[in-house]
């Protein structure tokens, strides 16, 4: 449960003192042995039945008497040996009972901070803090903290990362957030109904087991194919609805706030200037309504969705906040490959487009599902030109732009001379673009 005094307690603490996670933490691993047992029982029901009949009451009690205290002790000890501390420039996490691990996370390297609350954690009033850092494969997380403590800690980390003086970092608290957009559940539902993937997976889940039943008539094969297919269909429709439910985007000084989720609530923060690429996706059936989906890539972060569905003008306004100084180029501004590109890529060549503005490199792909990728010049790591033999015959070449989030944006089938010029002018722009870009500590 949330302790009422936690907020004050956090403020009173000196920077650099060790803190512990919420005392409920040991319980989060308590269900693991149970899950293993259930999984084994489901996997092999006959064997499980036989083993169960062999168990007598005494052995059962004995096992419980040993297992439960052991699990409790393990949980308690891992909790007891986990500390974290916030210093002026770092977040230090020490964990590990047998293998000690100390992580020092430099605050200006933090790309994003998420507060997530799985369903059970919401009931218990605790939250998980996840940190995205460049170069780390997995997210460092602090699980669990009191919900209120997680919020204050996130605010403090962001304030310090933004370059506020250490003494005032506590007092700033959570920066006020101004709501930019909220996706109504009805719009989200309609948008999912208008997505091909939803219907595709549903159709597959219905058709494939039926056909299999008619041809093989073996219930096991049907079940073995139907279960994963239904799972995929559920994930692409209901699952998406549940995670993208009540999607709210807010603007605050420490970055963009994204809150979403029906059962598991997640609160993500994307600090300004960390976005490497933005993709504006326009599925065929959404076009009449003027809706788009916006995805983004942040180095070292797995969050990739900015807006599940929004009207185009609203989406462009939000993109302008994520990439300051960028206006989304107009459709008419995109130049298509020359007509001879049809020899390299029949029909689909019409989907390609490219434009370069003062701030971004913008490349479009796709005929039915149009996707426009924007890369700010300052985020370009390297530029490559490639040309295969067939492309050279037609005097065409591809230009690839590599960004720090391991995403490559490609402008396909440009005329060779244009592509060569583009290669050099783009590397020049990305070099100079860096000088005008915002500093890492964006408040100092």
């Amino acid at each position, binding site marked *: 449960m949330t302790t009422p005094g936690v907020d004050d307690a956090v403020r009173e603490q000196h920077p650099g003192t060790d803190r512990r996670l919420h005392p409920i933490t040991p319980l989060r691993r308590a269900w693991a042995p149970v899950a293993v047992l259930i999984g084994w029982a489901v996997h092999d029901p006959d064997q499980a039945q036989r083993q169960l009949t062999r168990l007598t009451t005494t052995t059962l009690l004995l096992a419980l008497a040993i297992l439960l205290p052991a699990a409790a002790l393990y949980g308690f000890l891992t909790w007891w040996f986990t500390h974290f501390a916030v210093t002026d420039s770092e977040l230090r996490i020490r964990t590990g009972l047998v293998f000690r691990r100390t992580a020092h996370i430099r605050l200006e390297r933090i790309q994003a901070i998420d507060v997530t609350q799985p369903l059970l954690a919401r009931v218990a009033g605790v939250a998980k803090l996840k940190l995205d850092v460049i170069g780390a494969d997995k997210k460092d997380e602090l699980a669990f903290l009191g919900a209120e403590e997680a919020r204050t800690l996130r605010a403090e980390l962001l304030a310090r990362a933004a370059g506020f003086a250490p003494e005032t970092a506590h007092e700033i608290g959570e920066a006020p957030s101004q709501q930019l957009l909220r996706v109504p559940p009805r719009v989200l539902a309609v948008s999912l109904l208008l997505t091909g993937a939803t219907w595709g997976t549903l159709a597959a889940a219905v058709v494939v087991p039926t056909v299999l039943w008619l041809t093989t008539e073996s219930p096991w094969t049907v079940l073995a194919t139907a279960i994963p297919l239904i799972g995929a269909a559920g994930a692409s429709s209901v699952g998406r609805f549940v995670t993208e439910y009540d999607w709210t985007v807010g603007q605050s000084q420490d970055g963009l706030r994204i809150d979403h989720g029906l059962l598991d609530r997640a609160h993500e923060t994307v600090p300004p200037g960390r976005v490497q690429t933005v993709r504006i996706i326009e599925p065929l059936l959404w076009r009449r309504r003027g809706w788009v989906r916006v995805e983004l890539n942040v180095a070292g972060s797995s969050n990739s969705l900015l807006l599940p569905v929004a009207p185009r003008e609203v989406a462009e306004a939000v993109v302008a906040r994520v990439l300051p100084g960028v206006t989304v180029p107009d459709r008419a501004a995109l130049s298509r490959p020359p007509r001879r590109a049809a020899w390299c890529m029949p029909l689909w060549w019409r989907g390609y487009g490219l434009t370069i503005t003062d701030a971004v490199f913008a490349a479009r792909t796709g005929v039915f599902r149009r996707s426009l990728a924007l890369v700010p010049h300052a985020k370009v790591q390297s530029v490559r030109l490639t040309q295969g033999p067939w492309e050279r015959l037609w005097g065409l070449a591809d230009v690839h732009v590599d960004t720090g989030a391991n995403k490559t944006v490609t402008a396909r089938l440009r005329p060779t001379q244009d592509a060569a010029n583009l*290669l050099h002018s783009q590397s020049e722009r990305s070099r100079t673009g*860096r000088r005008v870009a915002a500093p*890492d500590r964006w408040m100092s």
Partner: protein
Amino acid sequence: METGSPENTGTARDERAGAEPEWTGLPPGLLRMRRLLLVVWLGLLAIGLAVLLGLLAGPSWTAFALLPLALMAWGWVMLGRNWRSWRYAERADDLLISRGVLWREETVVPYGRMQLVEVTSGPVERHFGLASVQLHTAAAATDATIPGLDPAEAERLRDRLTELGEARSAGL
């Protein structure tokens, strides 16, 4: 902004206007190594094939051993073309690498984006006195490797790139 290479002083703008940068090719050591490896492996294969066929199927079948030899001749030419296609240019602010005959690829890496410069040399390469320089940026897709350099040249390049990278350093 000061310009890096003495030969190219003040030519950054001219280069953009279309003048060719100063390209450097690879030393012949790499070509020698690759051709030698080709000849050794395919030669062994041809001899093995000839002996086996001659013993098992009859002397006239040994003609099939000419197949690896033809492959060797073709590979000899291909290796030469590929080797000639590799070249790099150190410009004032970025490194250019161009390679490939049929599948051409040209990479530009601004010095400021380099995170790490590596000099590697395997046992075979070391025997032939060769080393490769590999550039890493924050993007894994950046595939900027210059193989088969003279070790001294590789080290010079590494030091120079590191120095330029520091001078023009930029974050992500």
